[in-house]
Each structure stands twice: as structure tokens, then as C-alpha cells.
């Protein structure tokens, strides 16, 4: 296997090309040793050959391993021995004319309709179909429940309604267009995906980014995390009918969006991050305003969160709801707060640090239990830690306002780069490879939701269907990020 660090580029030719059986065995051995599949994808090659590439994350040793194989027609599926691979293999089968033989549930990922759902039969069983258009202001997706009375036996989630062809656009569109597409992969994760896109672009063209620009990217990434985590706590309160904290968190979420607007002119941070650095600086006067807002909002969040976590009727609804076991979490390779709520200590910011995170560490927040309560509590802890991190970054921004954005040179041919970013939902992975003329030959995006949607299915098992909104909100996954 080729060993690389997060944000490094390497020659495609240096990635070992193993026979399919050896490729499969190496992944199984790696996952057996505790590595995670961060990305597994195909690249179209001559004739009808598909190059399969796998990026394994070695969290304990802060490194990535990359390996590849070439397949045509059929290859032996990893999924029966390695459930982490299940959706990646379905995606490969959908994007290329290859079949992972032995895959237990080989269905399209992003082309709904035409394939049957898993169904259970029996006198007392019934089926509930929801979506793609849902009751609230949320994205479209289809949920198919197999129920016995109120109890859910199985939930199958069929997405794809949001598929806009983002990967193809990133491969074919001119650079200024590709940048705005990257910002629109998931509208609540503008900074996360834009950072991953720029890290990959900069790695391919060997472009250096100034320490101040790196720090401002980290500031924006944490503001994005804060806005979303605070909003999620409010949404959880709303779903259990606890309106006081729902209202407070709903308003406090806006404080962080407005800070992003102060910095970038847009509430979601659009146009801040560009290849080579950032477009906007944080002036000393703005930094003072940021510090006082962080201080005030931090105290107000604390009081709203105390109220939430000390109200017995709230806790009664959160505790024990939608539990995901620790073994399921590892088997599926969950990421982000959902994994940390199962007690798994993984976080790209400390395992594979990039940019400012190489110099300033954020302690990883974990809670055990794997239920809605644990996922809420992880968010609460991360909110506090992000605020502390922001205060220290904003107070001591590196010097260098004059070179916030450097120019990126031409991309050399036949290289590949991998970038991991800890978005607020978890690990975002972008992989890009260049062709003969340095053009983008393949652009692979993996949103954390790609790993975590299956966890929602598992969380619903043996749970009343009326708890679905609560469980769903506790993950708050992206449809657009999954569908691309």
C-alpha cells in the first residue's frame, strides 16, 4: 500500500496495483486491524477496465493508505466480509459497468424507482411509505418501513432524488464554476466541502497557503459546526415538544451564521474559501467583535443547554431512543458525532490534522451509549470546545494579511490527491486525479452522510415509528451530500 498524509499528492503510478483478490484481502486485513474505508471508487480506464481505488484511514497513526486494482465485468464483493464497503460497492456498480458479485443488496444508490424494497410478510405486519416529499422543509428522500403495529422491524432508505451530477461537473467545468459547485455540494456544509476541494486543488498544483489563511479557514469551519450543532439541539428540542430551548437555539444558530456573514458577506460562508487561500481577512476590530459575540453566545447557549439537559421530560425522550451499538458503528464505519456518540474516538481534526489544526488541537468529544441522548450530548460538548478553539484562534491569528491568497499553478499530469476534512457531520473526503494533460480525470466526493444513513436504519429497529423524526434529527444527515 502507498502511504500518504491528509492533503498530500502522489503519482498515480506509485499506487500499488494489486490483483483483485489481493486488493480485497488487503482491505479486509486493514479493516480487521482497525483501519476505516474513507473512500472506495472507480476510475474509467482503457477498454472496459475499471480501476478501483481504496483510501484506508489509519486513524491511530495519522496516515492514509491507498491501493488499487483493475477489474472488468465482475469482481468479488467485499461487503459480505466487510459491511463498510456496502454503499461504496453499490455506487461503483451504478457508475461503471461492473458487478460486485455476492453483494447482498445490490441496488441503485442515486436512481430511485424500479427496484423492489426489502419487505417482511405476515398477518400482523404492514408497510409504511414516506416521501420523497416530506412534511417539513427538508430535502427529498424515500423511507420504507416494515412495521408490526407501532414497532419498526426494518427501515430501508432510498435516496437519489437530489442527484445533480456534482462529480461530473467538478471533472468537466472550468475552475471558477467548479468552485461554486463545490460550495453547493451540501448547502449546510459550504465551508467543509469548499475546504476539501481547495485542499485537493492546492495539493495537486503544489500551492502553498499562508498560515493566516489556514487559520481563517479553520475559524469558518468551526463557525459552520457551531451553527449546525446549535441548530440541531434546537431541532431535537422541537421534536420532543420542548419549545423554550427550541426557540433559543433556533435564534442562537443565527448568531454564528451572522458571524460568517460578517466575515464573508454570506451567512453560509460562500466566497470565503478559494484555491490558494481565502478572499476575506478578519480585521482587528472584527476580531474584537467576534470575541464578544462568542462570549455572549457561549453563555446563552450554556443556559439554553442547561435547561434542555436538566428537564426530566426531555431526557426521558432522548435516553434509550434510536440506539446504535458500538459494534454496528465500527462495522459500518460511522463517522463524526454519530461515531463519537458510540464511544469511538475518531475525528479528522486530531487524527489527520490539516491547516491550522496541525498547530492547535481540539480535544475529541466522545459519549458512550449510541442513543439520541449521546448524539445530543456530543454536540453540546463539541459546541463548548469549538467556542474555546475559536477564541484562541481569533485572539492570536497568525500575521500576514498581505498574502491571504496565493496563485495556484498548473496541475502536473497523472497525479492524485486526497483531502479529509472534519465537517460538522463528520469526515468529508475528496479525491482528485489528473490525466495526461493535467486535466481533472476523476473527482470523487464522499460526504459523511454516505457512511451514516445506514446507521439511521439500524437506529430505527425495534423502535416505535413515532420516534422516527427524533431519530432522524439526531443524525441530521444530508440528502444532497449523499446524492451529489
Amino acid at each position, binding site marked *: 500500500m502507498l502511504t500518504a498524509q491528509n492533503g498530500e499528492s502522489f503519482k498515480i503510478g506509485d499506487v500499488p496495483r494489486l490483483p483483485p483478490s489481493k486488493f480485497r484481502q488487503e482491505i479486509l486485513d486493514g479493516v480487521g486491524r482497525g483501519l476505516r474505508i474513507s473512500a472506495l471508487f472507480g476510475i474509467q480506464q482503457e477498454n472496459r477496465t475499471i480501476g478501483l481505488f481504496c483510501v484506508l484511514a489509519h486513524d491511530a497513526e495519522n496516515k492514509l493508505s491507498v491501493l488499487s486494482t483493475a477489474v472488468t465485468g465482475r469482481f468479488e464483493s467485499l461487503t459480505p466480509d466487510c459491511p463498510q464497503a456496502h454503499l461504496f460497492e453499490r455506487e461503483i456498480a451504478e457508475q461503471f459497468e461492473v458487478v460486485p458479485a455476492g453483494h447482498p443488496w445490490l441496488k441503485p444508490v*442515486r*436512481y*430511485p424507482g424500479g427496484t423492489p424494497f426489502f419487505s417482511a410478510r405476515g398477518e400482523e405486519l404492514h408497510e409504511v411509505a414516506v416521501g*420523497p*416529499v416530506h*412534511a*417539513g*422543509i*427538508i*430535502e*427529498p428522500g424515500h423511507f420504507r418501513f416494515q412495521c408490526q403495529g407501532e414497532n419498526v422491524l426494518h427501515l430501508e432508505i432510498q435516496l*437519489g*432524488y*437530489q*442527484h*445533480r*451530477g*456534482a462529480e*461530473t*461537473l467538478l471533472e468537466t467545468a472550468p475552475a*471558477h*464554476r467548479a468552485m*461554486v*459547485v463545490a*460550495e*453547493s*455540494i*451540501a*448547502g*449546510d456544509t459550504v465551508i467543509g466541502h469548499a475546504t476539501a476541494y481547495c485542499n485537493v486543488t492546492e495539493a495537486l498544483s503544489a500551492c502553498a497557503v499562508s498560515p493566516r489563511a489556514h487559520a481563517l479557514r479553520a475559524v469558518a469551519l468551526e463557525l459552520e459546526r457551531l451553527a449546525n450543532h446549535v441548530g440541531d439541539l434546537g431541532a431535537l428540542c422541537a421534536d420532543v415538544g420542548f419549545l*423554550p*430551548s427550541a*426557540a*433559543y437555539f*433556533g*435564534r442562537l*444558530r*443565527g448568531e454564528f*451564521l*451572522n458571524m460568517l*456573514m*460578517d*466575515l464573508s*458577506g*454570506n*451567512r*453560509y460562508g*460562500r*466566497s470565503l474559501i478559494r484555491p490558494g487561500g481565502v478572499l*476575506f481577512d478578519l480585521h482587528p476590530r472584527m476580531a474584537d467583535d467576534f470575541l464578544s459575540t462568542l462570549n455572549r453566545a457561549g453563555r*446563552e447557549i450554556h*443556559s439554553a443547554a*442547561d*435547561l434542555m439537559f*436538566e*428537564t*426530566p421530560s426531555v431526557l426521558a425522550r432522548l435516553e434509550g431512543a434510536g440506539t446504535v451499538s458500538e459494534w454496528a458503528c465500527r462495522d459500518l464505519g460511522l463517522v463524526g458525532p454519530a461515531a463519537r456518540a458510540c464511544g469511538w474516538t475518531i475525528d479528522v481534526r486530531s487524527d489527520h490534522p490539516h491547516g491550522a489544526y496541525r498547530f492547535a488541537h481540539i480535544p475529541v468529544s466522545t459519549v458512550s451509549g449510541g442513543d439520541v441522548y449521546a448524539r445530543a450530548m456530543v454536540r453540546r460538548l463539541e459546541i463548548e470546545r469549538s467556542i474555546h478553539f475559536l477564541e484562541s484562534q481569533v485572539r492570536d491569528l497568525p500575521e500576514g494579511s498581505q498574502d491571504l491568497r496565493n496563485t495556484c499553478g498548473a496541475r502536473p499530469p497523472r497525479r492524485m490527491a486526497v483531502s479529509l476534512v472534519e465537517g460538522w457531520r463528520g469526515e468529508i473526503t475528496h479525491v482528485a486525479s489528473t490525466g495526461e494533460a493535467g486535466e481533472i480525470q476523476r473527482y470523487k466526493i464522499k460526504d459523511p452522510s454516505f457512511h451514516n444513513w445506514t446507521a439511521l436504519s439500524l437506529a430505527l429497529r425495534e423502535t416505535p415509528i413515532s420516534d422516527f423524526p427524533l431519530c432522524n434529527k439526531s443524525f441530521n444527515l*444530508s*440528502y*444532497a451530500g449523499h446524492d451529489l
Partner: protein
Amino acid sequence: MINAWNVLKTRLRQGHRTTAWPEEAPTFPDRFRGRPAIDGTKCPEGCDDCEKSCPTQAIRFDPGIRLDLGRCLFCAECVNACPEGAIRYTADHRMAARNREDLVLAGNGAEMRLAAALDAKMKSLFGRSLKLRQVAAGDCSGCALELQALNNVVFDLGRFGIQFVASPRHADGILLTGPVTKNMKLALQKTYDAIPQPRLVIAVGACAISGGPFRGSPAVLVGADNPPAAADPLPVDLYIPGCPPHPLTILDGLLRLLGRLESGGGHKL
């Protein structure tokens, strides 16, 4: 008992937070990118730097400079590309329009025509109570988030008698976000058909209006106003540009449609 005391104490600490708009003018930070203003007289002969810099071809010369708010993502590219400062962003959040062509700004100093109110019959139906059903058809969720934000205590949509509802059967109109993916075409059509007539269509965001960054992708049908010949275009009553539009931009558009804002912005009940 102790908990009830905590609820009251926290309530007092959190205070009253609803914005004073529309009675008072809204405030935006210096860098806020509201409606752009163009001064075509500053354009040097033969210069098309802004046109080349625009990621969504929102700018064109015919022969004077034109900027299409329906395509504009409100990014900073054209402003940075222009050597003469002919394009700048103002802090004006108002930019919703009733007609597609009203979204095209000219560089000759002409005022933008903001959305006019519905006719008297429609206004009497919807003016004091408007229920809308949102459909995301390939949106990145940015526009949906700003629509959700309208429900929070700051913007408090409910005080204007406007409400987002769960069922199209309860709705007076549809709020469309996203470039209409092929995979959502059927669901969008069914939702629209389920809304009782007369019904409104409101396109929110660059994607719904023109396809936004996804215009031209084979997976999308390019927004509400310009689908391929095979698809029936939805008759759009109100266009709200932005990527995503600020919540006050959306609110301003909705209230203008209902005839509840004076031209200056003051609230008329």
C-alpha cells in the same frame, strides 16, 4: 417546580429577539452582498473581464452591460475582476420580482422593478393568510435552511399570517428550491397538482430560477423558468434571487406579493 423556575429564569435571560423590520430598516454587515449596482458608464471600451469571471454567465454585453439576478450567485468574482469598480454590491436586500425579465439589471442607471402585488381577487384570497408548501428539487439545502430560518423567533414569519404547511392539500402555493433534478420531476409535478386552485408558484434561489451552479448538468432540468421542451414549465408568480437569498429578501418578496409593503419597505397592515 424547580424546573418551572428554571424555564422562567432562562426565558428572562434570553430576552425578546424579533427583528424590528419592517417597521425599521434592517442592518447588514459591511461585507453583505445585497442587490448589485452596475454603472455601465465606467466600463472601458471592449472590456469583458466581468463576463469572463462569472461562473454562471449571469453577465453579458448587449451591447451595454446586463446582470441577470436570476443567475447570479452573489459571489465576489465580477467585483474583483472589474478594473474600474463598475460593479459593486449594495446592502439592499430587496430584489424579488414578478417577471423573469425584471431580474435583468442594466448598467444605464434604470431602477429595478420590484415585485408588484397580486391582483385584487388573489390578494383578497391570500393577503392575510398564505399557506405554502416547500418542495426541494435538488437544492443543496441552503435555500431550505433560510426558509426554515423564517420560522425562528428573529424573523417570525407567523406574525404576517404566512405559514409553511405539511400537505400540498392545505397549501395556497408552492415554494420551489433547487434546479429540479430529473429524479424529482415527477414528485414536483404531483405536489403541484395536489395544490387546490388558484395556486401560486414561488421560485426561491438561483437554482430554482436558472439552474444556478448546476445549469447544464445532464442530471437537472434547469430551474423553474427554463425547462427543456419536454417538461411543462410551472407558471412562476414570484422570483426570489440569491444563493441562498437572505431570509429578509424572501420575506420582502412574499410581503410585496401580498401587497403588504410600501415601496420604501414600511409595513402596511
